[in-house]
Structures are given as structure tokens and as C-alpha cells.
């Protein structure tokens, strides 16, 4: 039997990997894909906890997360494509935008 902690560790690793992707990559689409990884890490944790509590609340939450992800992808990719049309580049420096 694979224990609960294995799932929690795995989701934590996946979440941190996604967060690293968001902070390290420059390309907007890649940053967005890393956000999807983070959301999936959260989904994994939710389903695992749902199993642990023998309830369905966690699974229902995952449904809503997937819905939200779909909505985000629609708006986000539209934005990315539009900005590419005007700028011919979709590089962002999320942490590098301070102008003081």
C-alpha cells in the first residue's frame, strides 16, 4: 500500500517544480504551462486528501479547479497571441519589471 505521505511529497515536488518554472522561464507560454503544473500538483493533493477523509469534497474541488483552468487558458492564450501580434515577442521578465 502506498501511503498518504507519498502523494503529499509528490504533489509538493510537482508544485515546487512548477513554481520554479514560473520564476525561471522567460517565455509567457512556458510560464503558463508551469502554472498548469502547479494547479495539477494541488489537484493531486486534493484527490489524495479526499481519499484520506473518505469524502468527495476534495474531488468536487478538483472539478472546479479544472473549470477555472479552462477559463484561464482561454483568456491567457488570447492575451499571449495578441501581444505576439503587436510585439513579435512573448518574453516576460516577471521579476525584472521594477522601475523604481
Amino acid at each position, binding site marked *: 500500500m502506498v501511503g498518504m505521505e507519498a502523494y*503529499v511529497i509528490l*504533489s509538493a515536488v510537482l*508544485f515546487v517544480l*512548477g*513554481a520554479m518554472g*514560473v520564476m525561471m522561464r522567460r517565455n*509567457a507560454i512556458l*510560464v*503558463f504551462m508551469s*502554472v498548469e503544473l*502547479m*494547479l495539477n*500538483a*494541488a*489537484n493531486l*493533493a*486534493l484527490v*489524495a*486528501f*479526499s481519499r*484520506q*477523509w473518505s*469524502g468527495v*469534497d*476534495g474531488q*468536487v*474541488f478538483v472539478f*472546479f*479547479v479544472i473549470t*477555472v483552468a479552462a*477559463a*484561464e487558458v482561454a*483568456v*491567457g492564450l488570447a*492575451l*499571449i497571441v*495578441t*501581444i505576439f501580434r*503587436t*510585439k513579435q515577442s512573448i518574453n*516576460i521578465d*516577471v*521579476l525584472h*519589471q*521594477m*522601475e*523604481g
Partner: protein
Amino acid sequence: MIDVPSFAELNLEVALPGIFLALFTTVLLIVDLFIPKDRKITTAHLTIGALVVAFVLNLPAFNAGETAMNEMFIADAFAGFVNMIVITGAIITVLLSVDYMKRSGIEHGEFYSLLLFSVSGIMFMGSANDLIVVFIALELLSIPLYVMAALRHDDVKSEESGIKYFILGAFASAFFVYGAALIYGATGTTNLPEIFRAIAGADGIVATENSAMIYLVIGAAMVIVALGFKVAAVPFHMWTPDVYEGAPTPVTAFMSVGAKAGGFAGLLRVMIIGLPLLVVNFGDAVETMAIGETITVPSAWQTALWLIAAATMIFGNFIAISQTNVKRMLAYSSIAHAGYILMAVAAVGTVQITKVAENDYTMVAVYAESALNGALVYLLAYTFTNLGAFAVVMSLENNDGSGTMLDDFNGLSKRHPLTAAMMAFFMLSLIGVPTTAGFIGKFLIFDAAIQAGLIPLTIIGVLTSAVSAYYYVRIIVNMYLKDAAVTDEAVGLTPYVNYATIVAFAGTLIFGLFPMLALDLLASSGAQIATLLF
């Protein structure tokens, strides 16, 4: 079997303002198709009408103190007050948008629908009683804002502002979901009052020797990070200046008050209803307490919020000093103001423990009520004041987005005396000078923080307020003591913008002179929360 309850069991009438606005928005999408392109002002009028109706519907639901839709929704004074703030803010925003959208060539009927979607998201956020609802409402308030920020197609800055806001917003959402997952993992429920009960435990005191505790602490931290992004708290503020500068000004104005109100509504809901008693380290005092004795301890997240609030106030105010673009300056000032409200949230985290009998304790977040009142009144004052300031900035803004530099305010008192006088009043309110609404908000928050024993934080708050006077007064000096190099007409000073400025001015003045108006509305909120929980 599927059990279908009667309509009455859902208790929909207490959720009427939100439901009405959401329904109206979808209808407006269709109605707008039949409004000719040169008469989009009708859409704006319909929007204002709907907002006024929602405001009226909000009045009977105000003090219902009831839950609806299977405990997912709660209508209490807190929800009613948040609704009031955001509806008023939205009305002013629509007034600001009408001419601005037209003269910058981005007049779309969908703009108003998107605005209303965002408003209903904030309203559901204020009434959320479940982590799932908080999450979905957070998205409903954010996604339209990403679009609205990028509305100026001709301007790369606006598109960049939309995409930056989107990426950091999505990043923050992921944090929220993971935090909510950990809280669910620790307590087995997503319902906020049930989370509270699960934490408080059977004997009235939280079990700290528990692995679930660690999940809770990290979960709470992640929720704070996520909502910290939404309210632009340091160090999660990096999107704010660019987004505020790039977005169309009415959208910036709405973002600075609406998204902030929504973020704080969510934060307060989660912290006050769900996690106020999350105490990790009781120290030795609890063991040696005599029966009947009372001690206060900080909750696990208070120190974190303390640091964030202090950093936000210091950073926001000091960087604002060096700004020459007023729109950007207001962005940093909006960061700073988030710090003051965070101070109130931190004040909630002071927990009082009383030993009733052997092995029987009670834990109460005693300052939740005064902190909540402070935060809400501050939000109300900030909404009026900041929207007013943005209205004035907008009236000076040219069609291409220029004209918002500090020097553009030179000699405004001679060209437009009334506008200049109102701007001066807004600036005084942002500093927190008595007779303005801003003073009442600051006073209540400092008071709550001192009661909760956060003396150093209060001192930082007072000192940074004094610093902020420097850059706010500079605008007044420019308007009254300097002469203008150019005397071109303020193109944005249209009747609608004037109405917006006057409404904002009236709000700032009235709540400054008669703070009891707001406090009476809130009088029952703390008691309600207390009866719900204990």
C-alpha cells in the same frame, strides 16, 4: 437518490443582490447587441441602473445573518458592507468610463458586462462561506480584470499590463488552491465555520502536537501569499506599478479599489472565520495558568502578517516619493494603503485564552470585531477617496494616455478651481487628515492594532503616514503654488467625470464628518460573527 429540495430551502432571497447582478449581466450581453454602436451610452445607463437596483436589494439582505445555498453563502453585515463598497465603487467607475472609453477609441458594450462580472465576483467573495466559493469568486473577479487591463489594443503598454496581471494572477491562484488543499487535508472540510470548529477542537484548545497543524500553517501561509498578490502587498506587489500604469485609467481605478476590496474580503473571511485560533506555540504560560486566569497569545500567522504589513507600508510610501507620473504614484500609494488594512488583519491574530476549569479552556479572537470594523471602514474611505483621485487624474489625461505627470498639475487651481479643491481634499484624505474619511479609517485601524498589542506596527503606521504626506502634499503645492507652462484644456473634464468626482467627494466628506453612519451599519457584524462561531 438525488434529493431535490424546495426552492425555499435554498434561501435565495438573502443572496438576491448578487444573483440579480449576475443575471442582469448575462441579459445585458444580449441587449447590448441591439444597441447601435454610436449609442453605447445606453449600455452605461443600464449598467448604472442595475447597480442602483442591486444597492437597494442589498439593504434588506444586509443584516439577515443567514446562510444560504447549503452553507456556501452567508449574508451578514460584513457581506452587506462589502457589497455596498463595491457597488458604489462600480457606479463611480462606470461614470468615469463613459467618456474615457469613447475618446480613447475602445468603446465596447462588453466592457460594462465584464465590469459587472467582476463586481458580482467581489460580491460573492464577500459572502463566501466555503473555500471553494472563495476560489471561484476570486477567479470571477480576476479574469474580467485581465481582459479589461488589456483593452487598449493600440497600446503595447496596455496589452503588457494585461498579460503581466494575468500571469501573476494565475500564479497566485495556484498558491490559493494548494493552500486550500492543505487546509482541507488537515481538517477534512472546506466549509469555513467547520474548519474553525475542527481547529478549535473538542476541549476548546488547539492540539499543537499534531501533524495536521503543519498542513494548516503552510496552508494558511499559501492563502496569505495568494491573496497578498491580489491586494498588492509587499513582496507580492511587483505587478502593481506596471499594470496600473498600462491599463486604461478607469480600469486602474476599479482595480485599485475593487480587486483590493475583493482580496481583503477573502482574506478576512478565511482568517477571521476559518483560522483565527491557529496557535502553534502557547509557551509555558498555559500550563501554569490558574483557573479563571486570562492570557493573550499571537496566532501562527500574526507574525507573518505583521512583517508583510510593515514592509508594505514602508516600501509603498517610500517608493511613491520618487514617482513623477501620478498614475504610478497612486499605484505605489495603493500598495501602501494595503499595508494599513493588513495591519487590521494582523490585529485579528491576537488570541485570548481563558482557563475555565481544569483541562477546559476557551479561546477567543477578541479583537476580531474592532479590527474588522477598521478594515471595512478603511476600505470604504479608500474607495471614495482613491476613485476621486483617479477621476481628477483622468480629467487631465490626454487621449493618448499622456498628461498624467506631476507637472501637468501645475496651476490647476487657476484653470479649474473646483476640481483642484476636490483633488486637494482627496489628497488630505489619503494622508488621513481629520474631517476626511481617510482619517476615520486610519484611526479605527490604529486603535484596533493598539488594543491587540501591536504597538511597534502602529508606530510604523503613524510614521509612514507622515512620510506619505510628503508626496500627497506635493500635488497640492503644484496645483496651488506653481504656474502652468501650458494652458491646454483638460480634455477629460466632461460632465460624467465631474459627476464621478462629486460623488466621490461627497462620500469622502460625509463619512469623514459623520463616521457613525458607517459604524452603525457595522455595529452588528462582530456580534454576528461571534454568534455564528461560538
